[in-house]
């Protein structure tokens, strides 16, 4: 039996986000100010320091997500990070894609690589012509 699952990516793992930033060639700062239009700044638990004039701030909701009580698993999923930036004039889009697409893609790739490594699975990575990245995990 086979099945497939579609998932809406949520940023929860700072290390995986760091890997994604490294691949993009940008820096991830902790507890910093994100630069915006006209010298405005926004504080971020995490800040993606871009090469252009504006940055991306990442913050979590202060309340933790109440996860459904499955019974078998007592650990709560931490709240995901929400991204904020200044899209003016396409500076940010040029570096991370529309709606942070490229950043989210690389986060998903590096998060999968980390989880696969933890399970000691072999991974092959392939760049598809439509721009997607395909990872194959096997024993």
């Amino acid at each position, binding site marked *: 039996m086979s*099945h*497939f699952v579609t998932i*809406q990516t949520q940023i929860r793992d700072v290390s995986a986000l760091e890997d994604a930033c490294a691949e993009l060639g940008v820096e991830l700062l902790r507890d910093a100010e994100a630069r915006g239009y006209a010298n405005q700044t926004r504080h971020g638990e995490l800040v993606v320091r871009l090469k252009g004039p504006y940055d991306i701030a990442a913050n979590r909701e202060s309340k933790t997500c109440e996860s459904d009580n499955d019974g078998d698993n007592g650990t709560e999923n931490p709240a995901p990070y929400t991204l904020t930036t200044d899209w003016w004039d396409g500076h940010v889009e040029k570096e991370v894609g529309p709606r942070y697409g490229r950043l*989210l893609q690389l986060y998903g790739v590096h998060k999968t690589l980390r989880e696969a490594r933890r399970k000691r699975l072999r991974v092959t990575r392939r760049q598809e012509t439509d721009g997607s990245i395909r990872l194959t995990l096997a024993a």
Partner: protein
Amino acid sequence: MKSNEHIEVQVSPEGAITITAHGYTGSTCEEATRFLEEELGTVGRRQRTRDWYRSNRNTTRNKNQNQNQNQNSNQRNQNT
């Protein structure tokens, strides 16, 4: 994981993730990808692939054959 079992993770340029499990039998299939699903984000859609329907098709086909046979015998009855 057995030798023919593998998981494919496709990440679109928009950051949407599709996970497909191949070569698993029975309930091990959905267990196989759970460790990734929970870590990556919120699960949007879960769907069984062609492999799943292939293994279940035989039973439906037999049912159809039985129906056809019934129809044939009905026709024969009408003819006589």
